[in-house]
Every structure is written in structure tokens, then in C-alpha cells.
């Protein structure tokens, strides 16, 4: 057992975990942040994507201990109070989700995609970049629309800041 200290969604947290504990299980089982999901056991599906120090990471491929001292953001931490993150709003407005299970990972990946491309995205780039996130409901059509829409919204939001 080890004590892991890190920052999650802006709050300092500490948990006593088995050494083999994965970050996703630290989040779900110890911190009750159940928005981060587990959809596979081979790091293919991306339902567990969170941000570690601002970068999208599959939290099923990181030991909790490896995340010690880092700054983790989960799906629960991206809205500002009642104000949704532009990516969340775009997923809702474009019907980019159905069952909702892959959605948190999709949104966290998509935010990172927009950041890495400085908001300059086209459909082919979005489709290629989403390769690590599997959705079984939407056929990706509306997810792609949502990401492109959000890229525009995030640019506007950034310009306003």
C-alpha cells in the first residue's frame, strides 16, 4: 500500500492504495469520480481519458503512483460551475452522444485535440485524431461535428479572454 498525493480538479487529494492500483480506479473507487469510465482492458477504447498536467492520457494505462504530484482533470472538472465547457456544450448541441458511456473520454480527448491543433481542424484530422476513442452508438458523425463546432467556440472563448 502507498499513499498517493495529487491534485484532482483543482483540489489536493490523498489516497491509500495498493501499488498496482490504476489511476482510473483511484479516481472511480477512492475519489468517487465515476464520470471516468472503463470500456476495455487493452487501452483501446478511450472511455477513461483524463488530463494529466494538461495532456490527454488514458487513465487505465497509468498507475496511481505514477500520477503522484501531478495535476489531474476529469470530466467532472471542466465546467465552470453551471457554465459548460464549450466542448461539453458542443457535444450536447450536435447530438454527439447517445448512451453517454464513451462521452467523458471523447470530450477529454477532443479538448486536447483542439489544443494541440490550436483550433485549426478539419474533418479528416478530427477523424484521425479520434482513433483512440471508440463509440458504438453515434457512428462518429455527430462527434466529428461537435469537435469541429467546439474548436470554433474555444477560439472565440480564447479571443475573449
Amino acid at each position, binding site marked *: 500500500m502507498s499513499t498517493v498525493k495529487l491534485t484532482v480538479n483543482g483540489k489536493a487529494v490523498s489516497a491509500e492504495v495498493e501499488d498496482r492500483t490504476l489511476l482510473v480506479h483511484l479516481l*472511480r473507487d477512492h475519489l468517487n469520480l*465515476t464520470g471516468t469510465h472503463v470500456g476495455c482492458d487493452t487501452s*483501446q*477504447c478511450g472511455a477513461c481519458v483524463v488530463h494529466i498536467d494538461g495532456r490527454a492520457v488514458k487513465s487505465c494505462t497509468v498507475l496511481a503512483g505514477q500520477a503522484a504530484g501531478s495535476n489531474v482533470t476529469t*470530466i467532472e472538472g471542466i465546467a465552470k460551475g453551471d457554465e459548460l465547457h464549450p466542448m*461539453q456544450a458542443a457535444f*450536447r448541441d450536435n447530438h454527439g452522444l447517445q448512451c453517454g458511456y*464513451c462521452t467523458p473520454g471523447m470530450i477529454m480527448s477532443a479538448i486536447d485535440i483542439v489544443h494541440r491543433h490550436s483550433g485549426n481542424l478539419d474533418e479528416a484530422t478530427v477523424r484521425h485524431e479520434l482513433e483512440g476513442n471508440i463509440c458504438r452508438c*453515434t457512428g462518429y458523425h455527430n462527434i466529428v461535428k461537435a469537435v469541429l463546432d467546439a474548436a470554433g467556440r474555444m477560439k472565440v472563448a480564447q479571443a475573449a479572454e
Partner: protein
Amino acid sequence: MGVEGIGASVVRKEDRRFITGKGRYVDDIKLVGMTHAHFIRSPHAHAKIKSIDTSEAMKMPGVVGVLTGQQVVDDKIGNLICGWAITSKDGTGMKMGAWPAMAPETVRFVGQAVAVVIAETKNQARDAAEAVVVNYEELPAVPDIRAAIAPGAPQLHPEAPGNVIYDWTIGDEAATDAAFKSAANVVSLDITNNRLVPNAMEPRAAIAEYNEPEEHFTLYTTSQNPHVARLVLSAFYNIAQEHKLRVVAPDVGGGFGSKIFIYPEEMVALWASKKVGRPVKWTGDRTEAFLTDAHGRDHLTKAEMAFDKDNKVTGLRVKTYANLGGYMSLFSSSVPTYLYATLLSGQYNIPNIFAEVISVYTNTVPVDAYRGAGRPEASFVVERLMETAARQLKVDPAELRKKNFITQFPHQTPVIMAYDIGDFHASLDAAMKAIDYAGFPARKAKAKSEGKLRGIGISCYIEACGIAPSKAVGSLGAGVGLWESAEVRVNPVGTIEILTGSHSHGQGHETTFCQLIADRLGVPISQVQIVHGDTDKVQFGMGTYGSRSAAVGLTAILKAMEKVEAKAKKIAAHQLEASENDIVIENGEFKVAGTDKSLALPMVALAAYTAHNLPDGMEPGLKEGAFYDPTNFTFPAGAYICEMEVDAGTGKSTFVNFVAADDFGRLINPMIVEGQVHGGLAQGIGQALLEGVVYDSSGQLVTASFMDYTMPRADDLPSFKLSHTTTLCPGNPLGVKGCGEAGAIGASAAVINAITDAIDNNKLEMPATPDRVWHAIHG
């Protein structure tokens, strides 16, 4: 329609919790004192269990109990059942072998559970499972249909000689044979409909809790139909009586059919929760999903179509072998029979049809309904035959279809179905226009000049949804009725709760069902709450599958609404001292027509509950229920056209365009309908290009993870161009037909027709991987 009424693309109410990480799926639930289950599964496809030694595991840290298949039998837990009886052509019933929740003696597929460890933590349960020693005596395995029917094949179940479950026929054999004898042309095809894994993104999970003083169980489970689960667990599996079992299906992360069925893990969790006296949680991992979720499709078919000299279809003859796996899953028997062969007429006037379906046992995961369930297989047979015929007869494939379309309705096919309405010319014309069908030859020539192979493929599908009426399906062997129930509760303050037996696991019922209320009463959907997925709250229901929720579930709500409105009008008329016939409902107000007198819905509701001033003899309250049993199936239909380009050097196929023109009758929420089509198309395209289960000769599942089984990714798919044509369904008052499965039913034939057109070789199996396509080009 109003901004939130029927026909409006209202943004979904349920989305906020999902996009903020506040959904509540089964694995998110924690109960006080909860233990964790891990199953020990057979590594062999076919074996006798010689012994199970649990003594070391019992000593492991945190272990609460280790339970085996023999204990399941000793406690008289019922075997899993198949709920649709099929009769063979010789008049005998289907040959169902016993399927205990955990195997006491014999295992018949890799992954079948033989024992379970219950421990304080999931990791402790996993660790202890490693210490359980199971001795097996391996038996020869039957990995596929051909092996199952081979002379001298190993036998799976003593009840099913030759591994044959049933040999069933439909249609007029003699008349069909005669049609082939007098045919001017005959087209034939051998078709493999590849086996698929549904792979809802949320793995199955169950939490069972037993309340000893009350002798009452609660089961939280990933179910598309919690009431059916309770019925089956009570009536057949002897877990508890219905009033002592509550089944809750909270947020469920996709189903696609795979979460219709009641699986061994839920049964064992319930049984074990009583045995160990603690709540028991099981959450499957992805490998377990591959090894235990019911698979889909898996047919071998020989199909022939007869034409007269004018290229009119005169007959269709089909022989299909269907693989049902190692055991008969809940509705498995109906999928390759009444959900498949009854759709073999497609959109065409075919006077003579005969089909024979032989379902067999193999040492593989049980096979059951997966999105479309039988109808994709039927549509693929018919549409591949049509395309092949056009090529063989050297006529345009669109023209051949149009020549044979059914144009008069109602239309009785030779295989049970009575199509109520449709306009097949309209949808094909819309699709041809959308893809510029007339311009294709020029595009093909241009592609050729650039060294690319260009092909176009049509698929005109029809499906039968909202499977009904109950009396009819009962006469065909169904063990359940297929109606739906609803209750409308208007609260004293005028807010509304809709209790429905339908279950939403991505379909958006929390929005679309509210839209009906907004349409009827003119109240905002924020005033309406949909309650579903809990047998303690909703009286009964048949759940969501077969694209039935709008046609059957929503109509039941409408029927209950009509009763509520009638009573509310009486109350309003009494309060307003007017005739109830003069009361009209507008914008949430009950108005006396032609006057300025009105009463708002909350005031009517309050009057109903205070009961101070109701018409003489009227009961207080404003709550009504309804059971709705449709008079017929609904028949969504449409046309899909796919244009593809194939690289002859690599065999890789690339989408140029994919257009869909669907007729779903009235659309409640076009945005949601289109989302359903997108998802269905992705699964149909996945079957055509990417997905396929592979077992090796010993029955090992080679494709048991997302590393090995190709799920469609975003860059495998195009953006789709959708359109709608409309004939209103005459069978229900809303005129709706259902849209959940269409894409999965129609897409695969369009893709294969396009690729085979591009490469000018009709022999190509699904999934059409670059390797297969390359070999089809180069031999």
C-alpha cells in the same frame, strides 16, 4: 408542432448528466458491505469437469466464499431458457440442451463460468480465482457450422442428435420449385453472414442485494428490459418470487440487443448475495464481454432467385444454417426464423418463397439478437441477389429493383408479413438523386483514368419493427406478449411524470417521450419527467429492442394521455361551468372554446387532488395507465447507396459517398432519428468491412479483445448524407415506424455491392478486408 412538440429537433434533456460525468451506470453504484465477484471460466471449448478444488482459494485474503456450479444445481436454481418455441418441419419441438448458470459437469464454450469467488475487493477476488484448481478432461470441439453438421461430429447435447436444434421451413416448397422449373433465368449465391460481437461500450454488470428479514432481493443490472429480467428470474430461475425481487436498470451504456438477455452472471450474483449474506457486485471486463455477451449473425446460406423473361422475380429459395452457439440464449431460436425468413420478400413482389433454416449447436458463445436480429441477414440475402441478378441479366440494378417493387398496399408476402404501407420508388429515387446516380459512369471513368477502381452499390431494405400483436407472436411460439405499458401521473402542482416500460440506453426517450406531452398539452418539456428502468416504480413493461419504443411504447403513453386529458377536461368543464365538449387544450391551458374563460393545467391538477369541487361521482386524482398491443408490425424501409473507390495495389476500399433515404413514418425528433441512423450505418459498415469473430479449430476465440476484433473507428467511416421520405404508419395513431435498426439492416449490402462492382468480381465475403479484396482482384 411547437418548439418542443412532435417533429422538433429538441436537444436532449438527459445529456447534461452524461457530459458532466454524472451519469449513473451500474458500476458507479456502491452499496454498504458490498463484496466483489470474479468468475472462473473454462479455458476449453468442450470439456468435462473432473474436479474443482477451492480449498486454497478459500484461505486467500479477503475471500468471503467460493461457489461452484454443483451448488447452483443443488440449490435448484433453474437452467437458462430459450423463450421462443420453434417447431421443426417434422412436427417435433426444438431440441434444447440444459444450460445451468455455472457448469456442474460439462463446459461447451471458452468462457463459460464454472465457479465464482466472492471477496472483499475486486483484486482479492481475482487473486483468489488464480488459486482455484479445476481439472478438465478435454473433449473434441465443434468450432463452426460446417464442423457441427459433419458426419461423426462431436455431440454437444444429448437432446440434440447431430447438433441440430431444429430444421424449420416457411413458404410453399412445391410452388417455389415449380417457379424455378419454369424460370427464364436463375441467379444463385452462397453467402456467409459473418459473426459479430455487439460490444456496447459499457460492459455488463450486476449488483445484487438480499434483505434477509424481508426475504427480498434487489438487482441493479445493465438491462434493456428490467421487467422481463424479473419475470424470467422469478418464473424460470427460482431466484425469488416477483414481489420479492426488484430489478433496476439505471443508466445503461448501450445494448444493441446484447442486454436483452438474462445472463448467468446476474443469476449467480443474486443467488450468491443470499448465500454470503452481503451485497455482491460483478462488473465484466471487455474480454468477458467478448467471451460471454451473446454474439450476433453467423449464417451460412445458399440462396437462389428465379426470374421470368421480363426480369420479374418469380421465386426465391433459401437454405440457411444458423449457428446458435453452445446453448440456446433467451430469444435465439426466433432470430434466424421468424425475424429472418419472414423478411425474405424484401421490397419486392415475389409470388413464391420457400426457406429452410437449420439451427445448430457449436462450441461457441451463444448467439442471439444483435441490432437488426435476423433482418440484416435477410436484407443481405435479398439485396446481394438483386445486385447479382442485375449483373448477370445485364440490366441496371436500380431499374431491376424498380421493376419488381411492391407498389400496392397492404401487401401480403408469401412469408407471413403483411406490409401495411410504403413507397419504395420514392426512397430509391431520393437516394439516387442524393448520390447523383446518373453521373456515376462519368465518375467511374475518371477514377479509372487515375488508376482507381470505382463502384456503386444499392441496398433497398425493409424491416419489421415493433414486433406484434401479442396474439400473433404467441401463435408463432413466443413465450411473452409484446405490448407496452405506460402511466401518466399529473402531480397536484401540474408537473407530469411518465412511467414507461420502455428502457432508454442511448435512444433519448427522456426527450422524445416528453415531446409527445409538450405536443398534447403545450407545456414545456422541463415540466415532464420520464421514469423508467425500475420494477418498483413502473408496473410492468416489455423493454426496448426491435425498434419498438416509439411505435409501441410511445403509443401506450399516448393512450394513457388520452385518458388523462378526458378526465382533466371534465374537471375543467365543471370548474368553468362549461360543457366538456367545449374544452380545448392550448399552451397548458384548458379553455372554453370561443370565450376568454380558461383554467391552467396546475389549477385543474390541484382541483383533482383537493377534490373539493369535482363532478359528482368522480374519483379524486389525475393519473391514468394504459397497456397498448399493436395490431401489426411496422415496416420501416429505405434505400442506401454507397460509392466506393478501391486501390487495386493494396485492396483498400475508401468511401466516396454514402447516402440514405429512409421512410420511418412520422419523426418525433429528427435529430435523434438521424443519430440512430448514423449509429446503425456504422454497425452495418463495420460488418461489411471490419468486424468478424474468428474461432480457431479448437474453439478458442481468437478475436477476444479490441486489439483483435476491429471496431469501427472515426477514420474508418464517412460522414453520411441522410434524407427521409414519408408514408405514415396506419397501424398506430402517431404514424411512427421505428428507426433504431435500419442502418444496421441496410448498410452492409450497399457496401459489398459497391466493392464487388468496383473490382468486377462478385465473390467477396464479409468483412471485406484489404487482404480479401486484394485476393478478389488478383486471385
